[in-house]
């Protein structure tokens, strides 16, 4: 099986800088991590590879040059080869433009590697944008079936996969023909750690950087230009001081004061 895992390098969410001109995040200079749900997606793929050595896992990201560090991290925990799509033309992309870009890159990788992907995996949502849109929009661009909120994926006979999908009140096992798209949410298992050996190999790995032209990307459909949504403004939410604080002599008195106040306000 050939699996493409799309990841995103995201800024540490406790430190934010915004470019006042474009209202877009300035990603340089802010500590970065592989978005956690993407790490779960990679782990799900790595588990397939544990069981079938013929599985190859490719990692793809669209991002600025430093996203290459996130790719190396992924190579150290199961990825076989990684690609970075990085181009000014792709900058400022919303989810639709990102989905289009990743779809183009996927086709480029298939062509240059002489393979066809059976499955494309994503984390459910990136923890900076939180939209959960890129996976499904890439799937739509490629006209592939999708299952979202997956916990586990396994091959299920020739040309099929089965996915354990989280529902609001339980789970279902779903089957699709490949090629297909799966987005992964937090499962009941943790991603593996790299070994010293795998980290060293990742450090030395050659990671092709693809330009928009390499991927036959139409500049009208990528980046800010290709984004139907525009950020009008960003702002930090107003700091809230909070309401009344209660601290009586004893916890019982505090509880009584709380209780009385809640009753007075008709809340209980």
């Amino acid at each position, binding site marked *: 099986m050939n699996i493409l895992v799309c990841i995103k390098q995201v800024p540490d969410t406790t430190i934010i800088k915004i470019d006042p001109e474009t209202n877009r995040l300035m990603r340089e200079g802010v500590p970065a991590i592989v978005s956690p749900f993407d790490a779960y997606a990679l782990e799900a793929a790595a588990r397939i590879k544990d069981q079938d050595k013929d599985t190859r896992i490719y990692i793809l990201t669209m991002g600025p040059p430093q996203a290459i560090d996130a790719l190396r991290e992924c190579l150290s925990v199961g990825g076989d080869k990684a690609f970075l799509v990085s181009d000014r033309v792709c900058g400022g992309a919303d989810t639709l433009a990102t989905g289009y870009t990743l779809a183009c890159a996927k086709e480029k990788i298939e062509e240059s590697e002489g393979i066809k992907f059976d499955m494309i995996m994503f984390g459910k949502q990136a923890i900076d944008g939180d939209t959960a849109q890129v996976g499904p929009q890439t799937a739509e661009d490629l006209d592939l079936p999708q299952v979202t909120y997956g916990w586990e994926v396994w091959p299920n006979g020739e040309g099929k996969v089965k996915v354990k999908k989280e529902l609001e009140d339980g789970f279902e096992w779903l089957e699709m023909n490949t090629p297909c798209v799966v987005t992964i949410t937090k499962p009941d298992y943790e991603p593996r750690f790299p070994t010293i050996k795998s980290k060293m190999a990742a450090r030395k790995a050659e990671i092709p950087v693809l330009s928009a032209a390499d991927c036959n990307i139409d500049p009208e459909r990528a980046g800010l230009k290709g984004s139907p949504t525009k950020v009008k403004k960003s702002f930090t*939410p107003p700091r809230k001081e909070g309401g009344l604080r209660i601290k009586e002599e004893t916890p019982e008195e505090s509880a009584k004061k709380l209780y009385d106040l809640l009753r007075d306000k008709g809340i209980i």
Partner: protein
Amino acid sequence: MLQSSYEPQSKDLWVFIETKNGKARNVGLELLNPGRRLAAIQGGKTVGLVIGYNCDEAVKEAFAYGADKVIVMDNEVYDHYSTDAYTAAIVHAVEKNCPYSMLMGASPLGRDLGPRVAGRLKTGLTADCTSLDIDEETGRIAWTRPAFGGNLMATILCPFTFPQLGTCRPGVNKKLEPDFSRTGEIEKDDYAFPADQIRIKVLETIAEEGEKVDLEGAEIIVSGGRGLGGPEGFVTTIKPLADALGGVVGSSRAAVDAGWIAHSHQVGQTGKTVGPKLYVACGISGAIQHLAGMGSSDFIVCINKDPEAPIFGVADLGVIGNLYDVCPALTKLILADKD
């Protein structure tokens, strides 16, 4: 060049009414509230788009909770949700009727469906909106949403294409008072996606074990966090208080990650978004990601030993104290009064 396949003939605002077993789910009904407000400003009708099977009940509910008109697609192929059938159905209805905008619930179904619809229509979708307004400059909808786990708010526009799409999480909006005598124009759309073209097969359904946790529908939630120190706290302290108040037990991510309680109880950016009448946070520090999940609560109480905990910043009433002393005392007072 960004452009839509159509030019809307009206400012009609659609609300996708998600159904289950023929009844409307709350998330869609909630959206009729901001929907009506926006449609009124723009001079359009509020139209409910009901998709399901045997869904006369859902149609009645859509009118009761604020729709002026309902478009209904009632067919067996829509009984069990599938990405393929629902995406095709919505795209068909949109291309036929050319609405100005559409709201959808950011339920798991909505998050699966919304981006596919937006992708197929090549239009803009803004997810998880916490407030909706009209942009003065363009007259279009201004979608405001949290990013970075709530550290940043962004106001987004969809300035060039139609329909303008947005989703809101369940509980962020409140349903209007229903009026079941309300009715209006019903347009039946017979489009039935061919069932044999659905590309997903259900192999097996596994119902959740134990009690179903309905956080999104709860009026009162009592949540526990890292301050509990262990799983027993949920049993000895949090649940009794929740039961006394007639509420549901929630949790912060820390307690779920520690294995003290199931993920189905998790409130927060990567858990559920809730908007109860009363939210009681016990031993929860109030990380931004948790606040993103419960910030829409009508009234917030916190109980925490640490007066510097960020949760005090959003709490209407904050008790500085040990939850293991305060909560049982509060539970006792509530139960005593009941007798």
